[in-house]
């Protein structure tokens, strides 16, 4: 265990660490400026448990109905001996393809239990290497591969619900998503989320190849995205470039190297341990926990609620400190450099003097206030 791990472990307490997933990595690119989140995720702390204990649970994220719909769709794609899958790969990648070899890594385990991620990763790895070196059949689909990506010096195992398709020396990530493509158009937000997740898998695949001295270029930036067509459950596939998302994720992963530095700034004794009793009920005093959390600088934006369990907590915290970020990005950008409502209004009302940097914005705000007052007085 390296010292970074020890320090993150201290922060987390005795609870088992939650692994990073493609979802948490995607969140990293969604709000890269948030140190609070980077540290908490790196330490594998359960944000949902944290938020719940603090009395600000986030919304339930997974709908059973959505999950069922997704599973039914996946069955449809992979069922009947992957007939649909083969058709879609053939059409999308322009291959002359009659059949593919198929490996499901979930079936690696011989014992009752599913084998550990480490074992399955080793198996994934060897399959990928043998495909890349021409030992495996020339067209192979790997389902449920277990990938590994170093994040801030840690190996993170990703168990994506994706396929890696290898043909003639090239790998493509294949994602099955249950949002529809209607008359040739899919919801751009969902597509971007899918591509951001795929970016993590692309990087992890490249990592395996690079480790073996093989060319990471073999993993294409393009992915195959499979969705329901129009109003049916018939699958359709499109080829999408994830290049932008790959670059952005790589950039943010590099930034995570700052973790030790962030931890250096934490006073000793900072801990997010919930101190569960034998029944698993948290016993940590809330006030105490909130104080520790407050030492990790947050960067709240109203978009946090789409990707972070702490969103309600961080919004309340921002509000209670009169911070402008709770009011949205427009306000924050309009009065850049002024961080609280109290200061902004004190400047407008002339209760405090603007610093040099605040002079322009103060003048503009006072002007806006004057116009509004005139309007109220009926003279604008």
């Amino acid at each position, binding site marked *: 265990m390296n010292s970074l791990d020890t320090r993150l472990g201290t922060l987390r307490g005795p609870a088992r660490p939650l692994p990073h997933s493609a979802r948490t990595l995607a969140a990293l690119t969604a709000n890269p400026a948030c140190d609070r989140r980077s540290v908490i995720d790196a330490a594998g702390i359960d944000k949902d448990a944290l938020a719940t204990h603090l009395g600000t*649970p986030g919304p339930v994220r*997974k709908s059973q*109905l*959505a999950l069922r719909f997704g599973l039914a769709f996946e069955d449809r794609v992979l069922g009947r001996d992957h007939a649909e899958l083969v058709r879609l790969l053939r059409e999308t990648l322009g291959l002359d393809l009659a059949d593919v070899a198929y490996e499901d890594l979930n079936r690696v385990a011989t014992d009752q239990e599913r084998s550990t991620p480490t074992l399955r990763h080793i198996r994934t790895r060897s399959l990928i290497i043998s495909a890349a070196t021409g030992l495996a059949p020339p067209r192979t689909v790997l389902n449920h591969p277990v990938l590994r990506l170093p994040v801030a010096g840690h190996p993170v195992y990703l168990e994506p619900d994706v396929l890696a398709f290898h043909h003639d020396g090239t790998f493509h990530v294949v994602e099955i998503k249950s949002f529809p493509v209607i008359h040739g158009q899919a919801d751009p937000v969902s597509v971007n989320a899918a591509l951001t997740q795929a970016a993590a898998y692309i990087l992890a695949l490249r990592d395996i190849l690079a480790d073996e001295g093989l060319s990471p270029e073999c993993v294409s930036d393009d992915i195959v995205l499979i969705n329901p067509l129009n109003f049916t459950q018939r699958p359709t596939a499109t080829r999408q470039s994830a290049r932008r998302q790959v670059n952005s994720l790589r950039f943010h992963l590099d930034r995570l190297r700052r973790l030790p530095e962030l931890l250096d700034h934490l006073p000793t004794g900072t801990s997010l341990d919930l101190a569960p009793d034998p029944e698993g009920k948290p016993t940590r005093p809330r006030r105490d926990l909130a104080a520790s959390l407050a030492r990790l600088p947050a960067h709240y934006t109203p978009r946090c*609620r789409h990707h972070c369990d702490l969103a309600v907590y961080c919004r309340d915290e921002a509000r209670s400190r009169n911070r402008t970020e709770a009011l949205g990005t427009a306000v924050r950008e309009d009065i850049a450099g002024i961080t609280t409502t109290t200061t902004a209004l004190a400047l407008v009302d002339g209760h405090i003097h603007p610093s040099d940097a605040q002079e322009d914005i103060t003048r503009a705000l006072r002007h*806006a206030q004057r116009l509004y007052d005139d309007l109220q007085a009926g003279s604008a």
Partner: protein
Amino acid sequence: MSLLASLLRLRADASGHAIRTSHVRHLHLSDQPLMMLPLKRTGPAARPLAVMLGTSPLRPRLLIAPPSGSTATMLTALAKAVIGHVASHHRAKEYLPATATRPERARYLDAPQLVVPNQQAVRFLRTLASGLRLRRLDDQSPSANSIRLLGQWLTHFTDRAQIPGSAALVSLTDLLVMHWITGQSPQDDDLATLLAWIYPPFGSTDGRDAARHAEAPDTYRGAGPDTDAAFDNEKLTPLVDAYARDPTPALQELEKLLAAYLQPTWDRLWQAYALLQAIPPTASAGRRWAAERAEFTDHTTHLDQDGRPRPARDQAVSAAISLERREAARAAFNADRALEDPFVRVELRTTGDAVGGTVIAVDDQHTICGPGGRDMWRPRITLSTQDPVHLEPGRLLTSHLHRTARYQVRGLIAGPVDTLVELEITAGMGTVDRPNHTVLPSAGAFLVLTAAPEHFRMPAFPSRDQTPWTHGGPPPEHLGDGDGSQEEQ
């Protein structure tokens, strides 16, 4: 968003009370709109779960779709309700005489209006419409025909909703935020929290407190069309399973559940409607509604005479044309808003797109050399302003007091506090002998000028006969798309 809007948001945050912005309504609201509160089934692209609808707050109708199997019965009932509302406007017509550019036309005296909670509902209806209008074209049964006709009408409403200034399909949340600013982020502004800020219920100390209460997980109710995951897991999933075992009682349960789930939002919709209805509409809202009546008349004629549904996807040409129409409508709508709404003018002054200032110099003898060498009278004035003007020379401005007046920006001289704006008056000033003093003021007067739309009389809503979208019908590759679509999900 403007700096003024941001400032007012800060004020609302500090005071805990929503702040009133605009005091005039830019969209027509019908006396009897068809209020629609749709819910979507989680998962499939556009499978409705339920729709609560009606033209009065009391006794709404609730149509529900069974958890699995065909939605045809529900859609037929929905078709009946929507088409019935549409048909109730197919009554008296007025006749407009021919003009230089158009032949004589007839126009219905009123048009139907749909009102929904938010943009997401508009989007859901649009997706639903595109599935329904092309659905099973080989099935000619009365029920299939009425479902397709529902698709065509919903297409009409949702297409119109993309035109800025159109009131055929109104999202109440969007209309509310044109009139109030809250102390929370725009992303947090949904129907429930907005109303709490604007109209805190009895017993809450202020808007913030009320919004906080409205958001509490056990009381919160989203305005749809998506149901939240907790509701799906705790309430809907068990009923979906029960339905698979024994449909009849489960369906009754589902109806009870959804009626109770939707009722608070239904009440809020009418509360929001009443608040907005009380705001006086602008003159141009009436003009745009007259154009809307013409659109409605044209669409009716199209359905009667041709009746082919709009293809699944616009062809390039018609897509470009609709984009251009939308941009023209946006420009015209923005210009109207600036001319009719003092709050909008003030907002534009804080962004530098309009200017208000005192006339400090007048050159009422200024002439330029016109075509043919004749002198043309072009008086000039200089305004002194503290507004952060961003108006490049050559820009044409106008005044809400005299809308045909045109002031051309000649130059700006920025001083330490004030900016001087030199303007040449190019239209509306009258003649040298009889100048119009509203347009050509004397020194000391205060003027507010906003950007003049490029073509002020640009038809925001060109008549349908100039647009080719009525042609095409479904392209062959989409013919089968609707086939069994809803059933399968």
